[in-house]
């Protein structure tokens, strides 16, 4: 085995945080190496050092036989054969595929940008690696999977020997993930490249990687051969204790229908149809999971139910009452709580304190304000402290701004607020996105508790594991239409992938009958 990359005693100090602590690691040519760990374990930081996004504080990194110097930057990293595809795509939405791939290295004719040559170059590149794209497409209008392909092509443009992929499957469907893995296997085998994956999805890690490095709190805990390790072993190394993913669901009799959505239609922010005749029902004491690849109408569905997006047709009923035209405030008053997918934009006010964020929606209740006007500051504080304790929110004080908390704790703030309304209906969107394993467990338990208390829960998630674990019933959403509805026991993840991608549909089946 030929050594490709070597980290020796690498440390990285951010103001106040030691992000990498004395990491020593070597990665070989022609292997798929996965770096796993919880959020903030330092895996992205380590790769950013390699790629020159950040200067390292201590230690040494060698690529091939070259040592990286203090002036290391992405440009140089690429010259040395290291390329990186970031979790958040670094693509300019209004530029075309070709313009994005060649950004910074545009072919010129005199001073002018030679658009024809650019398209030619990109076509050649995509043929070389078997990654097909249309160079003239505007990137902002492409699907996430295609955007990722553009990113990968951009990374391969310079003839990279090492490709770093940061959380590449987080936004992909099972099928798209499979395609990506085929590409990875192809470039590793045929071009003898090295691929480094940063991820926390263990099943995928086991499938694709040759070796796995586990990181925890900035340290590299262990490197294992994927063939010899088990998921459970890796998971417990990541969190430093045994994690038990056991079945949470218990059978219970269904209550009455509480939430009824009939023929719902809506348009998205780009004024394109997002929901087309969506109908579904949620009973008391039931969790209905909505599966779908992001951007197929889940966001709009949740927002319509909550009155945050005007609907263009159909009705939403709560206990038989039409709430379609109501504002979020009115809908909340009728007994719905909502955990939105976009925490920082919708779920919290990052600048406001933890206690303010916990209070929202209850500020006019007599227990918190006299005559609905005069705030009872002391009671608010007390209440916030209680909630912080009850939901195990790790914060240095209730007056700290929410943005100073970690992702998992911010999510707990949202959950604490919403669950404490005690409403009979809950709409929950992406409850554990970007949340640590420990917190995931906690959040799942709380959701189950709510179900067992008899709440009707509409659960929207991009994480199939989560949906299968929690939901009683699953519906699939594809291009704004419901393509299937299943009792959770009756279907497998692979099967549901076909419904999520439009490859199969119960609807058409019915129509043909």
């Amino acid at each position: 085995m030929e050594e490709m990359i070597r980290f020796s005693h690498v440390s990285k100090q951010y103001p106040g945080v030691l992000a990498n602590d004395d990491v020593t690691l070597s990665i070989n040519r022609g292997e798929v190496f996965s770096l796993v760990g919880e959020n903030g374990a330092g895996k992205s930081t380590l790769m950013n050092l390699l790629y020159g996004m950040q200067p390292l504080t201590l230690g040494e990194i060698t690529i091939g036989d070259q040592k990286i110097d203090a002036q290391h930057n992405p440009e140089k990293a690429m010259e040395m054969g290291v390329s990186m595809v970031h979790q958040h795509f670094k693509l300019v939405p209004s530029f075309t595929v070709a313009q994005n791939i060649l950004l910074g290295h545009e072919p010129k004719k005199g001073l002018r940008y030679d658009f024809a040559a650019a398209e030619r170059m990109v076509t050649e590149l995509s043929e070389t690696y078997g990654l097909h794209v249309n160079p003239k497409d505007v990137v902002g209008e492409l699907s996430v999977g295609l955007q990722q392909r553009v990113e990968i092509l951009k990374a391969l443009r310079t003839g990279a020997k090492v490709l770093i992929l940061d959380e590449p499957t987080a936004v992909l469907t099972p099928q798209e993930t499979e395609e990506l893995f085929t590409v990875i296997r192809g470039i590793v085998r045929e071009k003898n490249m090295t691929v480094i994956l940063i991820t926390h999805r263990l099943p995928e890690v086991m499938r694709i990687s040759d070796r796995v490095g586990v990181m925890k709190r900035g340290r590299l805990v262990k490197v294992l051969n994927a063939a010899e390790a088990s998921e459970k072993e890796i998971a417990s190394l990541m969190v430093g204790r045994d994690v038990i993913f056991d079945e949470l669901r218990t059978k219970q009799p269904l209550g009455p229908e509480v939430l009824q959505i009939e023929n719902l239609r809506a348009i998205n922010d780009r004024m394109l149809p997002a929901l087309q005749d969506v109908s579904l029902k949620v009973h008391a004491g039931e969790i209905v999971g909505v599966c779908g690849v992001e951007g197929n109408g889940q966001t709009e569905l949740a927002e319509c139910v909550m009155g945050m997006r005007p609907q263009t047709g159909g009705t939403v009923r709560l206990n038989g009452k039409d709430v379609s035209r109501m504002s979020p405030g009115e809908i909340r008053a009728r007994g719905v709580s909502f955990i939105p997918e976009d925490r920082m934009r919708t779920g919290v006010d990052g600048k406001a304190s933890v206690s303010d964020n916990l209070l929202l929606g209850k500020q006019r209740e007599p227990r918190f304000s006299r005559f609905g006007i005069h705030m009872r500051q002391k009671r608010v504080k007390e209440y916030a402290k209680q909630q912080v304790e009850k939901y195990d929110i790790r914060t240095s004080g209730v007056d700290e701004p929410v943005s100073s908390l970690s992702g998992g704790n911010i999510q707990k703030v949202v959950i604490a607020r919403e669950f404490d309304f005690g409403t009979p209906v809950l709409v929950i969107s992406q409850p554990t996105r970007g949340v640590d394993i420990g917190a995931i467990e906690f959040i799942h338990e709380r959701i189950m508790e709510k179900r067992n208390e008899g709440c009707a829960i509409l659960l929207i998630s991009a994480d199939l594991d989560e949906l299968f674990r929690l939901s009683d019933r699953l519906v699939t959403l594809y291009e704004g239409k419901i393509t299937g509805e299943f009792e959770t026991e009756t279907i497998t993840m692979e099967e549901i992938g076909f419904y999520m991608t439009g490859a199969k549909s119960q609807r058409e089946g019915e129509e043909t009958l």
Partner: protein
Amino acid sequence: MSNSFAQSIRALFRLKPAQKLNREYRISLLTAVLLAFLVGAMIMLICGFDPLKCYGALFEGALGKPRALGNTLAKTITLCLCGLAMSVASKAGVFNVGGEGQLYVGALAAAVVGAQCKGLSPWMVVVLALLAALVAGGAFALIPGAMKVYWKVDEVITTIMLNSVAISFCSYMANGPLKTAEKGIASGTDSIMKEAGFTKLIPLSNLTTGLFFAAAVALLVWYLMTRSSIGFEMRLTGDNDRFAKYGGISAQKLMLWSMILSGAICGLVGMLEVFGLHKRFLTTVSNEFYFDGMLVAMIMRYNPFGVIVMSFFFAILNIGGRSMELSAGISSEVILIIQSVIIFFMAAEGGIRATLQSRAAVRKARREAAERGNAA
């Protein structure tokens, strides 16, 4: 056409985090004031004036005599009300840069009511004029406010443009239909009922009983913003209107009302100027008073209490500047320079501090690394 462009326009003028006025911030403020005075002193030196003498004249002129103090307090009231008007709107996420126009409209409305309502008791006239000013200012603020809330038309440009419109309009009224027949008044309306004008609290100064109106309004605004559930809702709306809407607050209504309140306060300032000082509407009723107040509010991060304190300081500079010009001979505009330097530093305060801190952190890390290296 790029989407980004539309986005960047939509992202226009997002407020920076409204931190509290903590200790660090107060230290920065003090440093900025000292630095600004230093800059001012340098300018004075270059222009051949003695800084000590100038600054002496400045404070003497602002605080030295009861009359001067009265003028300074009167100026404080104006600045403070304008600052609070700005704060009320900004807290809810609307930038009211149009206070100057609202002030003019309010002043004109008050002056017209004050002049036309002959035969009523003075108290009635004051109340009616007050109402007229509040309504005029509020209504004029409603235009950009409604355009912002319902159509998402950026309010910064529209309010600035409406300032020019209002000032031109009032000047047309004062030179045309409402021009007074009195001799010696260049462009102004008829004078208001004499008994209705505010009485002076300190003889010969500009400080009048209008102070009580101002105090009442300031108290109300302070309570609303810091102690009431409406203030809480406003704050969340201003920080993140999507979040507020999601939480059941009707953000649109709140933004609209805070804009109206802001305009009404500006109208009140106009009324105070008319009833306290000029006793009629003059086209010179305000000299960009609102912009000074607005800057005070920005420096103090829309904190009502801070605005009151800072207004006093800016009033000292303002009133003192004039007498400094008379006694020391230096042009009073140097004060504007000093004020803007304070603002530049305070706006950049967070960034400068972060830069210094991160440099210090890097240096510390390097030193530690070197020590560790030596030890090994």
